[in-house]
């Protein structure tokens, strides 16, 4: 308080002595006190700025004086909570060379009088709340080399008069509300090095003048509303190291001349650029960041990009790129981030990407979603599996392969990517069990497996203690959802769409039946209803087949679905099964002995039965240790019954037996894609189901083009570990069109 009243007295005396604007005082101390007056300084950070006679302003906080003249040459109050406004008295510091008021909670306008600081070389008012126009008087500062006004609330145009500051090297006006066009004259400066205009409301197009004079190395106009195309003269900007034109409304093609630049950062994302990615970008070997994402670029990913061996970030996502992923990208050995998602790329994930492992440092982001969604004119799709080579990418923290047509199971080798914190495999056609080894991913906090065909239970996730986001909905999972450990944090939404999955919450599908004491009765009733529904369903199915099928077995189909629960019965759905009875099958497989096992799945074991004078049969035995196994069985049959396609592996029949509920299929000799891809050629292929190479008799049911239904159905009838063979499938599709 004492200081303050003293201060007021001092000011009164100042006024009395004729101190005022326009009158230059050589008393820097008095000027500083006048400047202090316009700060609120609620924290009293300028406590030592006092008027006491013994106080030397040259030792005041933030003040630096010239050793000889004792003029203030530097004022650095950055980071202090000054609050208030910039005093016009600042203009009286005629010798000041540096003013740094960065982040000092100042508001108000920049005073005109700043133009009187004729020695000023560096002015930093960034990170404040300063509003209004950039004052005209700034252009009077002929010594100014650095002008940083970013992160304020400045409005109005960028004055062309800034071009009259001959030594301006750094001009950073980013994150304000400046409007109008970027003045052409700004570029006509031999020494301008740094032009930061990011985050304003600038309009107009990029001037062809932008590199008439050399020097500019940093050019950032990100997040404005610039239109027009990138000028051809960009090739003159050979000094550019950072070129950020992202998030504007630029159109046209990326000029070939951009290849003259040797920038470290090229950010063109979030515009409306069209045309192809110029191959010449592959010559820009200094690139550390190449971001062309979210444009309208077409054509292929140029393989020459593989030459960018210093590039750490490559973002091409959100374009309309076609073709396949060039394996040459595997040469980008410094790559940490690679995003190719949301394009129209097709083909397999090149195994060469596995080479990206050796020089990885900390992060690797691999997002390939929507990669395989394009169908060609024949209605085919290419697909792939998760390359085992990914296991070598041990630094990878983020793996997103969602929304592709990826098939097969999760390779247990993925569990070796110990740094993985995010694994998104959702919206694919993955099947099989969720591998137990996934619990080795102890850093994983997000796991998304929804909309696949995973089977088995979720017990393998019990030990994923770091998991905070889990989604396994819409799979074929079954069993109980554990209640312990971290599972209590997951909401029912994480699990819905798995008919066999039994939750702990109230309206879980099987919650009611388990909660009553009349479990068995209940179960029987449900089974009865279910089977009744199944019979009706099958009748409809057969009826639908009728126009296409000879009547010889339609009668049989009508007669044979007679089910009793007293002893095992075989329900025959197809002619091929008609000759065989349940007992024959049990005899031939020695009551489903292990030696006839050809595959395991999450929910089933698959056996092969070679019957006399007939095609071999595959038997899928659903695990019966789940209380709701009947429901699962029924669900699977329902699903199969609801899908009709010429390319389906047909179900031949089913049976309820003491050994479990059995499904009978045609046995396919071709093996699976998984075998082709993952088993060394020397090892004999395990025989089990695969997509048939020709239409089956059942293909006489009406066929639909719905590919999703097709794929879904294939997974339904396949043992869990199998996948279909891309090549086979492709050939098959072509053969039918």
């Amino acid at each position, binding site marked *: 308080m004492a200081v303050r009243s003293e201060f007021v007295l001092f000011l009164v005396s100042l006024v009395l002595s004729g101190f005022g604007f326009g009158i230059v005082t050589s008393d820097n101390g008095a000027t500083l006190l006048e400047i202090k007056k316009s700060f609120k300084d609620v924290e009293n950070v300028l406590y030592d700025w006092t008027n006491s006679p013994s106080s030397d302003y040259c030792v005041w906080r933030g003040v630096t004086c010239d050793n000889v003249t004792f003029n203030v040459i530097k004022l650095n109050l950055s980071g202090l909570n000054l609050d208030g406004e910039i005093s016009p008295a600042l203009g009286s510091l005629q010798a000041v060379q540096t003013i740094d008021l960065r982040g000092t909670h100042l508001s108000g306008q920049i005073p005109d009088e700043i133009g009187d600081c004729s020695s000023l070389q560096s002015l930093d008012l960034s990170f404040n709340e300063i509003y209004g126009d950039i004052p005209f008087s700034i252009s009077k500062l002929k010594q100014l080399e650095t002008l940083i006004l970013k992160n304020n609330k400045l409005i109005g145009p960028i004055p062309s008069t800034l071009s009259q500051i001959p030594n301006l090297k750094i001009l950073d006006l980013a994150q304000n509300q400046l409007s109008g066009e970027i003045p052409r004259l700004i570029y006509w400066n031999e020494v301008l090095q740094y032009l930061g205009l990011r985050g304003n409301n600038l309009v107009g197009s990029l001037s062809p003048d932008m590199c008439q004079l050399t020097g500019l190395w940093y050019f950032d106009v990100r997040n404005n509303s610039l239109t027009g195309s990138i000028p051809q003269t960009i090739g003159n900007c050979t000094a550019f190291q950072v070129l950020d034109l992202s998030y504007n409304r630029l159109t046209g093609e990326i000029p070939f001349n951009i290849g003259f630049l040797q920038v470290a950062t090229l950010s063109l994302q979030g515009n409306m650029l069209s045309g192809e990615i110029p191959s010449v970008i592959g*010559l820009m070997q200094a690139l550390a960041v190449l971001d062309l994402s979210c444009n309208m670029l077409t054509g292929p990913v140029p393989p020459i990009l593989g030459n960018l061996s210093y590039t750490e970030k490559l973002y091409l996502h959100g374009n309309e790129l076609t073709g396949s992923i060039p394996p040459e990208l595997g040469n980008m050995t410094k790559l940490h981030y690679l995003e190719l998602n949301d394009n129209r790329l097709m083909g397999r994930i090149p195994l060469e990407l596995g080479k990206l492992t050796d020089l990885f440092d900390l992060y690797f982001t691999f997002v390939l979603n929507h990669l395989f969604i394009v169908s060609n004119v024949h209605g085919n799709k290419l697909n792939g599996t998760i390359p085992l080579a990914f296991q070598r990418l041990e630094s990878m923290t983020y793996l997103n392969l969602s929304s592709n047509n990826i098939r097969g199971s999760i390779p247990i080798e993925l569990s070796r990517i110990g740094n993985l914190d995010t694994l998104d495999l959702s919206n694919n056609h993955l099947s099989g069990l969720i591998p137990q080894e996934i619990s080795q991913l102890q850093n994983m906090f997000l796991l998304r497996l929804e909309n696949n065909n995973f089977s088995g239970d979720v017990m393998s996730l019990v030990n994923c203690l770091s998991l905070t986001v889990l989604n396994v909905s819409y799979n074929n999972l079954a069993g109980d959802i554990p209640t312990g450990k971290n599972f209590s944090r997951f909401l029912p939404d994480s699990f819905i769409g798995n008919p066999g999955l039994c939750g702990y919450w109230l309206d879980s599908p099987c919650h009611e039946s388990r909660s009553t004491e009349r479990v068995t009765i209940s179960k029987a009733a449900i089974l009865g209803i279910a089977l009744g529904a199944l019979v009706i369903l099958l009748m409809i199915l057969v009826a639908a087949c009728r126009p296409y099928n000879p009547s010889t077995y339609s009668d049989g189909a009508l007669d044979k679905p007679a089910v009793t629960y007293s002893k095992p019965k075989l329900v025959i759905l197809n002619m091929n099964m008609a000759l065989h009875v349940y007992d024959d099958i049990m005899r031939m497989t020695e009551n489903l002995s292990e030696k006839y096992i050809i595959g395991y799945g999450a929910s089933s074991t698959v056996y092969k039965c070679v019957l006399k004078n007939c095609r071999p049969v595959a038997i899928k035995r659903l695990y019966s240790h789940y209380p709701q196994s009947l429901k699962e069985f029924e669900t699977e049959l329902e699903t199969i019954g609801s899908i009709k396609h010429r390319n389906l592996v047909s179900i031949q029949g089913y049976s309820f037996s003491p050994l479990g509920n059995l499904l009978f299929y045609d046995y396919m000799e071709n093996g699976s894609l998984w075998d082709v891809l993952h088993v060394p050629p020397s090892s004999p292929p395990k025989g089990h189901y695969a997509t048939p190479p020709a239409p089956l008799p059942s293909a006489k049911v009406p066929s639909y083009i719905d590919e999703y239904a097709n794929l879904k159905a294939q997974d339904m009838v396949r043992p869990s570990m199998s996948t279909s063979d891309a090549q086979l499938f492709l050939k098959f599709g072509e053969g039918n069109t």
Partner: protein
Amino acid sequence: MAVQYFSPQTLLLTLSILLPLVRPFTVITSDSDVPSSALIDGPQPAFSTNQNGARTDPREQEAVYEIMRATGNDWATDISDVCRGRWHGIECMPDKENVQHVVSLSFGALSDDTAFPTCDPNRSYVSESITKLPHLRTLFFFRCFSNNPGRIPTFLGQLGPTLQTLVLRDNGFVGPIPSELGNLTRLRILDLHKNNLNGSIPVSLGRLTGLMSLDLSWNKLTGSIPGLSFPPLNVLDLSQNLLMGPIPSSIGGCQSLIKMDFSRNQLTGSIPDSISGLKDLILMDISYNRLSILLPATLKSLNSLQVLNLKGNPMATTSLPNNAFDGMRGLMFLILSNMNMHGSIPESIGRLSNLRVIYLDGNRFNGSIPNSFRNLRNLSELRLNDNQLSGPIPLERETVWRMKRKLRLHNNSGLCYNPNSGFEDGLDPSFSSGIGSCITPTPTPGSTRTVQP
């Protein structure tokens, strides 16, 4: 095929495939007497390995060593191949025989991020070896010779066939501009800013008809501005010299001019009528000269003009015609302070809706502020102080409050504000001294206020 590095052969092959697709080969052919191979003016890989036959012309390499030594960069002689590895400040280009040629040399501590070779300020000089670089396009010296002042070497004129950019900025050069620079007929950029050059601007510079930027500012040049007619010229900066005489009417031939800065000289006469040819002119600054004759009527046709600064020219009793600035639709800055102008402020100024800064202070304007000023809603600075204005201030309350201290109306004869305009708290007391309400003073206290008609 996965190639880790691009071999020059592969590069050439690629370029020969790529280039015709997008644009034809741009081959810069030297027209000098010395036969020299054409350079391949195409994008280069950043890290050419130079291992497959690519080499730097040995004479040029030696010349670069010499030039580096002359600037105190003796270390550079250890560079085995100056065109290899992209040394800062050295740019090269290959010719068809895969021989690298030096095309650009830059010196001086421009910034930390542009690590050009620095100069030893005490012993640096321009080495004549520069003339041994027959492909040199750019020569850039910034703050190199300040402590060792000398003349601009005349041998620079020998770089005529190729040199496009000559920047000798802030180097302390003394003496006159050598007329030999007029031989640099390919020159696009000539920047001699901030030296101590004296004498007049050589007439020979008139041969540099390809100039796009001519910056002779901040010297001590005398004499008159020679006739300049450079159609491509974009920037002409002659500010802060001692130039005299009139602005040549040939300036109208510089049709591409966007910046014309003649401020702080001793120019006399008038702005020539031919100025109307400068349709692209954005900035015209002739402040602080001795222009004395009426502004030309053609001035108003400069419809690209954003900045007009004529401050500090003591016009001989000039009044502004009402339509003086009519066509200047883009005008943002109108600086006419201290020009000894009288008469009334043209109403038409208020129709230039892009105006953000108007300085008419220090004149002898009388009458009232035009009502059209009410339409200047983007105004951020208005200086009408030190005139003889009177009558009500026709500004919106919001405009007044926004400008705050940047509205300066003090020292006029009788400016006032309408009592219900809400100005009272918006006007800064420092800059509105003597301005009161327009109400006729009534002796009866407590009477209702009436607005003066």
